[in-house]
C-alpha cells in the first residue's frame, strides 16, 4: 500500500537522520497545525522549500494554505504572505468568516493578503514574467519579516503564458526566489485530470517542487467525501496512502489512516456500566480508557446499555458525551425514562452532552469532526457513539479508518469509549467477520434475542474482555422500570431457558417440590399413625396377657385348693367309712390332666 520509501516507518525520520552524512542538511519541517497532516508527513511541510497543493476547485487548497500561514503566525510568530491570483481579497476574507479562526483579528502586516489578479481589461502582448510580483514580495518581506508565502491559484496567471516552457520558467523563478529569500512556500494549482495540458502542468510541478499534496473528492451517493494524499516528499518518508480529510469549523482536518496505536495511558480504575451484575462479572466494571463494543440486532437494548454507562458516570459526578445518529436527543431522553433513567437531570447539571447527528448528508469525516469537537469542548470521561456502525458500515472507503481513529483518540485521552453496532442474528463467526471494529475493542458485549415459546428475550454474552476475568455464561438482560440488570438463566436438564420459560420452569420446579413435600408429610403422618395404633394394640395385648395370666394363676390356686380340700374330704371320708384300702389314688392324675388343659 505504501511506497517503498515509507517502509522505514515507523522508526521515524530521526533514525534516518543520524544515518545521513554530515554534508547534507537534513530537511527541516514546519508544522502545519493540521494534526493529521503533520502525522503522515512526520512533521509538516519542508522548510525553505516549495510545496505544491494540487486539486480541483472547491477542494480546500486555499484553505490549506491560509491555515498553514495562520498556524505559523500564531504558534511560531512567523508572519506570512498570501498571494491570491484568483479571488479578490474581500472574498478570501468572507470565505474565512464562517470558520472559528477569528481571522479579522490578525494584523494586516502579519498576514498580508495580496491581490495578484491582473485587472480584468488587461491586454497581453507577448510574454511576461513574475519578476514584478517577486520584487514586490521581497519588499514586503523586508518590511514584515515574513517567512512563509502562499501562491494561491498560480495556474491562472502562468496558464495565460500559453507555453509549457514559459510556465516551467516561472515556476523555477518562484523556486529560485524562495530559496534566495529563505521562504517556505506553497503554490496551489488547480488540476482537472481531463486535459492533457493540465496533466503536463501537474507533471511539471512534480519536478519543480519538493513536496506535492493532492486534494481530491469523491461523491458517494449524495455525500461528498474528501481525501488528501502526499504524492511526493523529497528527503522525507511519508504515508503515501490517500487519507480522509474534512473541512469543518476549524478548517482543514486530516484523519490519518494510521492510528497512533499504543502508548495509551493505562488505568486500573474501573468505570461502572450502570448494570450492577455486569460490573460484578467484569470484576468491578469496564476498565477506564478502554473501548467497548455492544453489538446486537435492532431492539436488543444496546442503547439502554449505553445509556446506563452514561447515567452511571454522570451520577458519579463524571462528564459524558452521548452521540446519537438519526435519533434526536429529546427522543432518547424520553425513551430512557421508561427504564427509569433520568438523563434530563444530567443534561441540566452539565454533566451530559447529547449530540445528535444525521448520518445521511454528512460524510464520516465530517461526523468524526463534529464528535471530536464536542469531545474537546466537553472533556468527558465517557464517550458513547450510538451506533458506531454509522461510521463503520457505510460504503465510504475510509469509514472503518475513521471509526478506528475515533476509538484511538478516545483511548489516547483516557476516555472510556462505548460504541454500539448493529449486527444481525447470524452465528458467532459471521458476527466476528462483520465488524473490523471488534478487533480494536477491548470489551465486546453481544446482545442477542432468544426466541422460545413465542417470546423474545435478550441474552447478553461477553464475547471478549481484555484484562478482565469474565464469565463465559450467557446471561439474560432484563429491562424494568428501575433500569437494566442481568439475571441468571435457567440452565439444567441440558437446556438453557430465558424469560417466562425460565420463570415457568422455575415455578414448575417449585410446585413439584411442594407436592413431594406434602406427599412425604402425608406418608409420614400415616405411618406414624399406624405405628401408634400398633403400639396401642401391643400394649392392650400385653395387658390382656397379664390379666389372663393372673386369671390363670387364680384358677390354678383355686384348683389346688379344691384338690387339697377334696383330698382332705376323702381322707376324712375314709376315716369315717374305713374303706380306705379301696382306690383313693387314681383320682389324682385325672384331675391333674384337667388342670393342664387350662
Amino acid at each position, binding site marked *: 500500500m505504501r511506497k517503498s520509501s515509507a517502509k522505514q516507518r515507523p522508526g521515524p525520520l530521526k533514525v534516518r537522520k543520524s544515518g545521513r552524512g554530515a554534508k547534507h542538511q537534513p530537511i527541516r519541517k514546519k508544522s502545519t497545525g493540521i494534526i493529521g497532516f503533520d502525522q503522515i508527513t512526520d512533521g509538516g511541510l519542508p522548510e525553505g522549500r516549495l510545496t505544491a497543493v494540487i486539486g480541483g476547485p472547491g477542494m480546500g487548497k486555499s484553505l490549506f494554505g491560509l491555515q498553514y500561514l495562520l498556524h505559523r503566525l500564531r504558534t511560531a510568530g512567523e508572519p506570512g504572505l498570501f498571494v491570491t491570483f484568483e479571488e479578490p481579497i474581500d472574498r478570501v476574507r468572507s470565505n474565512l468568516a464562517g470558520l472559528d479562526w477569528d481571522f479579522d483579528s490578525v494584523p494586516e502586516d502579519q498576514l498580508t493578503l495580496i*491581490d*495578484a*489578479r*491582473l*485587472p480584468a*481589461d*488587461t*491586454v*497581453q*502582448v*507577448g*510574454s*511576461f*514574467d*513574475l*519578476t*514584478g*510580483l517577486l*520584487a*514586490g514580495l*521581497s*519588499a*514586503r518581506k*523586508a518590511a514584515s519579516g515574513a517567512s512563509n508565502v502562499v501562491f494561491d491559484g498560480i495556474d491562472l*496567471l502562468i496558464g495565460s503564458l500559453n507555453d509549457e516552457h514559459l510556465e516551467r520558467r516561472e515556476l523555477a523563478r518562484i523556486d529560485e526566489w524562495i530559496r534566495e529569500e529563505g521562504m517556505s512556500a506553497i503554490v496551489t494549482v488547480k488540476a482537472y485530470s481531463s486535459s492533457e495540458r493540465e496533466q503536463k502542468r501537474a507533471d511539471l510541478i512534480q519536478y519543480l517542487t519538493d513536496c506535492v499534496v493532492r486534494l481530491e473528492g469523491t461523491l458517494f451517493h449524495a455525500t461528498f467525501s474528501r481525501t488528501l494524499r502526499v504524492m511526493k516528499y523529497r528527503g522525507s518518508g511519508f504515508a503515501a496512502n490517500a487519507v480522509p480529510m474534512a473541512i469543518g469549523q476549524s478548517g482543514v482536518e486530516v484523519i490519518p489512516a494510521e492510528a497512533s496505536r499504543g502508548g495509551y495511558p493505562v488505568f486500573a480504575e474501573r468505570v461502572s456500566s450502570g448494570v450492577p451484575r455486569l460490573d460484578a462479572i467484569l470484576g468491578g466494571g469496564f476498565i477506564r480508557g478502554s473501548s467497548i463494543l455492544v453489538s446486537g440486532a435492532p431492539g436488543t437494548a444496546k442503547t439502554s446499555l449505553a445509556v446506563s454507562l452514561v447515567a452511571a458516570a454522570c451520577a458519579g459526578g463524571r462528564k459524558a458525551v452521548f452521540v446519537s445518529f438519526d435519533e434526536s436527543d429529546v427522543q432518547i431522553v424520553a425513551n430512557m425514562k421508561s427504564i427509569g433513567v433520568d438523563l434530563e437531570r444530567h443534561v441540566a447539571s452539565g454533566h451530559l452532552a447529547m449530540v445528535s447527528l444525521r448520518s445521511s448528508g454528512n460524510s464520516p469525516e465530517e461526523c468524526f469532526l463534529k464528535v471530536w469537537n464536542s469531545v474537546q469542548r466537553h472533556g468527558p470521561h465517557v464517550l458513547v457513539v450510538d451506533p458506531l456502525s454509522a461510521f463503520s458500515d457505510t460504503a465510504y472507503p475510509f469509514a472503518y479508518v475513521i471509526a478506528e481513529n475515533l476509538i484511538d483518540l478516545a483511548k489516547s485521552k483516557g476516555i472510556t469509549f462505548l460504541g454500539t453496532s448493529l449486527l444481525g442474528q447470524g452465528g458467532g463467526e459471521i458476527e466476528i467477520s462483520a465488524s473490523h471494529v471488534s478487533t480494536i475493542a477491548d470489551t465486546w458485549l453481544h446482545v442477542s434475542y432468544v426466541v422460545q415459546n413465542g417470546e423474545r428475550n435478550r441474552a447478553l454474552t461477553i464475547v471478549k474482555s481484555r484484562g478482565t476475568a469474565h464469565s463465559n455464561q450467557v446471561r439474560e438482560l432484563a429491562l424494568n422500570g428501575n433500569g437494566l440488570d442481568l439475571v441468571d438463566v435457567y440452565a439444567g436438564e441440558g437446556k438453557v431457558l430465558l424469560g417466562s420459560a425460565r420463570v415457568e420452569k422455575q415455578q414448575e420446579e417449585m410446585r413439584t417440590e411442594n407436592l413431594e413435600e406434602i406427599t412425604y408429610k402425608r406418608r409420614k403422618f400415616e405411618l406414624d399413625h399406624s405405628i401408634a395404633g400398633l403400639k396401642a394394640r401391643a400394649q392392650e395385648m400385653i395387658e390382656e396377657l397379664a390379666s389372663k395370666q393372673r386369671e390363670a394363676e387364680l384358677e390354678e390356686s383355686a384348683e389346688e385348693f379344691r384338690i387339697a380340700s377334696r383330698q382332705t374330704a376323702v381322707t376324712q371320708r375314709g376315716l369315717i367309712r374305713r374303706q380306705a384300702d379301696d382306690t383313693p389314688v387314681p383320682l389324682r392324675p385325672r384331675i391333674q390332666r384337667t388342670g393342664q388343659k387350662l
Partner: protein
Amino acid sequence: MSAKAVQTRRASVASVKSGGKDLEICLRLYVASWTPNSQRAEANLDAALREFTESTVYRVEIIDVLADGKRAVTDSVIVTPTLVALGPKRRLVMVGDLSDPGKLRGLLEAVASLG
C-alpha cells in the same frame, strides 16, 4: 539604467489637434531591469513611439521594480513587463514584451482616442 529610467519622450511636437492643445498620454512601463522580457518591451515601446505618433505627446516613465520594490507594491505590479497607459478617456493595461507592433499600435491609438 537609472538615468534613462525616468524620462519624458516627446515623439513629435508638430501637428496640434484639439484646439491647439497637445494631447498628453502617460505611459508607465514597469520592468525588471535585466530580464530579457523587460529589455524587449523597452525596445519595442521605443520603436512604436518613434514611428507612430505625430500629434500626441507621450510622457513615458520607466520603473525598475528590482530597484524599487516598494513601488511594485504600491502600484500592484504583478508581472513584468507591464505597461499602463493613461489617456484622456481610458486607462489600459498591457502585459508582455510588446512583441506585436500591430497590436501595440492599436492599443496606443485606443488610449489616445477621444471617442
